[in-house]
């Protein structure tokens, strides 16, 4: 039976959900968060200020800025709407909000595809990118996205993210253990997850071949998700070693203004998810000399959200977008960004994303990451659908972490939640900075105790708060694979 055999059930489910909520339209909200708003509680929109139930959430926080995306079914029918409706841009408590609706996109059915993950990293370099690095990153990400959209692979990107935790695997560290020491939370690394059809083995190998070529060309370290039986997300096998000389050579080929970018633009492209849209956008940016400092690409309810932190070249003083320029078409948006970065060539096009729109916020102050010594903790929990505060488990976890004697700071990096049947599955990553003076060899024990204590405390608190005494099934681990079966889309 081909994968086509699975799609009718997926299509019927999507259509039934849409019909149950009144209209075939998806309502969404993108919030660009600036540094001063990053500490606001992480609740989902309540039903009172959100037309329908919030079904999917993506949160991506960095030390200087962040993105928060919510989607749900629109309450009002929108059958006459042409694809993406107009976006409403306005300041909000969390930063700057862009709200809109889009027609349902039932052609994008990839829940049952095989999640294939790749991790490219500049060795163990922390995420401290200068303008040259950002230009290189844009080029690399454009090539990766193009590989996924190539004729052989033709698969959608389920997740593209940077910065992420790079992978370290020391043989026999510590003795007789699994050889995975605590990592740094944010490294100069790109994590890519592609939904390849199970029957498209040739496409999967073509994607791997492309990625190996890219890693070799740029001197990057490449890890592939371990596909051996019983292996779970977070287990990696090294395919290509880091080649620092080659990376330095590629850096030397880039013509960029020296120094760190002092400002950045927060950019989100949004439109109906389809294979090749991210490749179009990233290629246009790479061709026009736009540097990307951070990225998270994901599809929520079959809508693609391409969130970018675009570096403002050092030394330039760009004008912020006019009020009517905060929301533009994708073509106008990439040209606007290109102009911001000094591009003066032919007008750019985005052939696979012509119907997308772009939301622009900034420029915002930007500074290189100073928390590179932080360690990542991975979380997973589930909650009843009706609870709009189910994401605030993160706030409880961070609060509990900060109470610990060994933690000096804790911050959310990434969170994803998704409705699945009768509940909501959430997964997240938190970075914690420990107090100084802890020996490297003691780290695993300290982190293990910290995770167990936090998990027990928050679980107990949530269970006692729930009127029905339901558990949220929280798991906290300092090794990603200890969460077990988690897909990049947040579905177990």
């Amino acid at each position, binding site marked *: 039976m081909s994968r086509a055999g699975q799609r009718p059930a997926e299509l019927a489910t999507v259509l039934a959900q849409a019909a149950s909520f009144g209209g075939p339209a998806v309502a969404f909200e993108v919030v660009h968060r600036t540094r001063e708003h990053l500490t606001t509680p992480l609740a989902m929109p309540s039903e009172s200020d959100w037309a329908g139930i919030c079904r999917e959430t993506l949160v991506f926080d960095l030390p200087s800025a962040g993105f928060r995306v919510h989607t749900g079914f629109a309450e009002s029918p929108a059958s006459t709407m042409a694809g993406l409706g107009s976006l409403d841009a306005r300041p909000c408590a969390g930063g700057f909000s862009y709200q809109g609706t889009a027609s349902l*996109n039932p052609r994008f059915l990839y829940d049952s595809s095989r999640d294939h993950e790749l991790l490219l990293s500049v060795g163990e370099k922390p995420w401290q990118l200068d303008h040259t690095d950002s230009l290189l990153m844009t080029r690399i990400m454009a090539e990766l996205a193009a590989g996924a959209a190539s004729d052989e692979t033709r698969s959608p990107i389920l997740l593209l993210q940077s910065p992420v935790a790079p992978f370290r695997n020391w043989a026999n560290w510590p003795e007789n253990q699994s050889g995975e020491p605590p990592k740094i939370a944010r490294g100069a690394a790109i994590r890519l997850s592609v939904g390849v059809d199970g029957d498209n083995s040739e496409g999967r190998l073509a994607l791997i071949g492309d990625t190996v070529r890219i890693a070799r060309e740029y001197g990057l370290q490449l890890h592939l998700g371990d596909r051996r039986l019983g292996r779970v997300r977070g287990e990696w096998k090294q395919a290509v070693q880091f080649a620092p000389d080659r990376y330095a050579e590629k850096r030397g080929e880039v013509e960029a203004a020296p120094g760190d970018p002092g400002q950045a633009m927060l950019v989100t492209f949004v439109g109906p998810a389809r294979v090749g849209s991210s490749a179009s956008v990233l290629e246009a940016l790479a061709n026009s000399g736009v540097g990307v400092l951070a990225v998270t690409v994901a599809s929520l309810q079959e809508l693609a959200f391409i969130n970018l932190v675009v570096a403002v070249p050092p030394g330039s003083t760009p004008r912020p977008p006019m009020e009517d320029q905060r929301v533009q078409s994708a073509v106008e948006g990439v040209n606007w960004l290109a102009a911001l970065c000094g591009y003066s060539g032919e007008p750019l096009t985005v052939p696979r994303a012509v119907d997308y729109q772009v939301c622009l916020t900034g420029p915002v102050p930007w500074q290189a990451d100073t928390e590179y010594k932080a360690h990542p903790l991975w979380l997973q929990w589930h909650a009843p659908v009706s609870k709009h505060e189910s994401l605030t488990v993160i706030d409880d976890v961070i609060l509990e972490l900060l109470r610990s004697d060994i933690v000096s700071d804790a911050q959310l990096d990434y969170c994803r939640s998704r409705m699945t049947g009768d509940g909501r599955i959430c997964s997240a990553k938190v970075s914690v900075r420990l107090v100084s003076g802890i020996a490297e060899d003691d780290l695993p024990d300290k982190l293990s105790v910290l995770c167990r204590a936090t998990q027990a405390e928050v679980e107990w608190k949530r269970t006692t708060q729930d009127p029905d005494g339901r558990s949220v099934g929280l798991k906290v681990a300092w090794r990603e694979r200890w969460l077990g079966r988690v897909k990049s889309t947040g579905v177990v």
Partner: protein
Amino acid sequence: MAVGDQGRNGQRSILHEAIWRTPVPSSPPASDPYREALGLNLLALALRLDHVDRLSESLHLVDSTHMTRSVAVDINLARLTDAQRKALRASPHDTAAKPKSIWLPLGRTARTDLAPIQVKDSAGAMLTTITHRATVRALGQGLRRAFMIWLDSNPDAHRPGHELQRLRHTLYRSSWLIEAALTNLIENGSQPAVRHQSVSDPGVTRSVQIRQTAHEAVDILFAAPDNPFLSLLEMVSSEHLLVVEVDASQDHAVLRYDAPVLPALESDTQGSRFAKRRWRPPSWASLEHEFTVTYETVIPRAVNSYHATVEVPEELRVRRLLMTSDNDAYAVRLLIGDMHALADQYETLAATAPNVLELELQAIVSRAAELGRRRHGDLAAYHGYVRACYRTFTHRLPKFRSPAKKPPDAKKLCHDLGTPGRTLERLWQLSELSETTDDLRELTTKLTPEILTNWAEQIGTAELHLDIHVDNDPRENAGHTHWSRRSFGPSQLSAEPVKATVYAAFVDDPPSLAASVGRLLFAVVALVVALATFLEIGPSDLAHALVDGPKGTPATAAGTAQGGVSPSGPISTADALVTILLLVPGLLLSRLDIPSHQTVLGRLRLFSRYVAYAAVSVATGLALCVATRRNDDLAFPLVISLILLALIVAFVLLDGGIKAYKRRSRVPNKEAVPRWLIADIRRKPRPKRRTAAEFSTVGRSSHV
């Protein structure tokens, strides 16, 4: 044209035909949001049965060609979201967030099997079922809405000047026609093709132009391969949903219903569920020692537990019962696909990324080893089952083939696995090797592209995607087997429905008709021998009569009139002898329970029936000779009767021998049984045979 193309065009042509036979509407079809949501939710739930925890079927053979099914469904309404409950509310006016009662789909049946079904709850109370008419109306409204969503989601529908944009904004009647055709198709099913008139034909009407536009729009909208919308449409137009009203205040309930009678597959209707036609001998000529049956069904995506119970009349015995399912079909298909793809890319990867090649090979080996572990567990369970069957009639347990000799190293094992033979045994050795030694590293030195291709071929040929579940019912006239879903690792999760096949062999074991017929035969032989003794015809007379043949002189009336034994007339006690020769076998025959040959029992007792008839016929023939032939001419009929009876006895003994052999059969050589099982037990596997009767609920859209 490829098979896929035919299927796709077939699905599209169903809609085309509906467009050409549906009257062109002059106003937009009425819209009903309640029915739209109800129809789409019923459809989505019926495909997956998320709310069903367990499905239990009890199968009864009415006769050799008809089966009835009693189905028990354990439902769990906690799996439904509030939005689903609201959409499924039984009363459109019930505006509560959690409605009191909801419509719930319990299963799908082919439209050809449509019959009234009574669904009862655990207390025996009958539940309301939604009418077929109401179901198709809701589904029609839902699919119409789905079509509009599908059209809106097409980027071309918003591109000025494009045909789809015109369909959406100006060519209203063509758009309404497609919607009406969908409703028509769902309400009335697909019908034979009609001739399409072309717009280039002279005198073409406005109606034809509208239809032509709609026809072309469907071609554009559904041009992509494997369109899920058309698959849904095909399913909805060929199947019927069983939907009941349930009390939504309780999460758990058990519902029971009797499904429509299922006929055995006999027709050759193309593309339908009766497509497996084959020649069968007429029932009166079908001599069988055991009656074999297969029952094929589909376990929906979200159902994780399935029970099948087979019950037969007390006169019958269940000799073998097992269930196979293609639970691992997706994982094995991926494995074989990966093997072929890697074999193609082997040299490239070896040159550019040897680490990746090693990782891919290890992934393949780990999955193949797991497959070996699974099937080996199934094989062990099957061996135990056959041993238990043997213990019911003998102390000598069956002998199975001894484990294959372990190869000296991993390289030899990898090579052997690619050659025809005991693939399962090799895979089991592979799994043992992967757990106990470190030999399965540096696989690039052991697995070449040729070996990978051979592995793929052997795994596919051995049907290793089929698992086995054996009978665990202690009753002799019933069997039960249980299936539960087993996932094959996080990256191999399949959302596909599982096809399960129950195989059963029924026999007429002692005390059986054959024993009674044996006694009848013995009585007839004894009667004939007694007659020869009474007439003082010894073995030498019989031998001479056989050599000389009949004397050819009929008895005369004068001879008999003289009384006593006259050489020219019949025997004086002929009346008494004829009476005995007719009466004794006749009485014994009348005491036999010979059922109709349409029933399973009748099919199994056909040989015994013919033996009984033959024995009585011999006695009748002899009686005729006694009545009409001279007393000195009875030796020849007697010897012929004895020869015929000896032949019958020989057939009976042969039949008994075959029965004893079949009872000791370790594995049935049937299509329902996976090849890996046959190959592991038989040294020289033969082509698999079909069963005497095949039943199936697998419709042409069951892959949906």
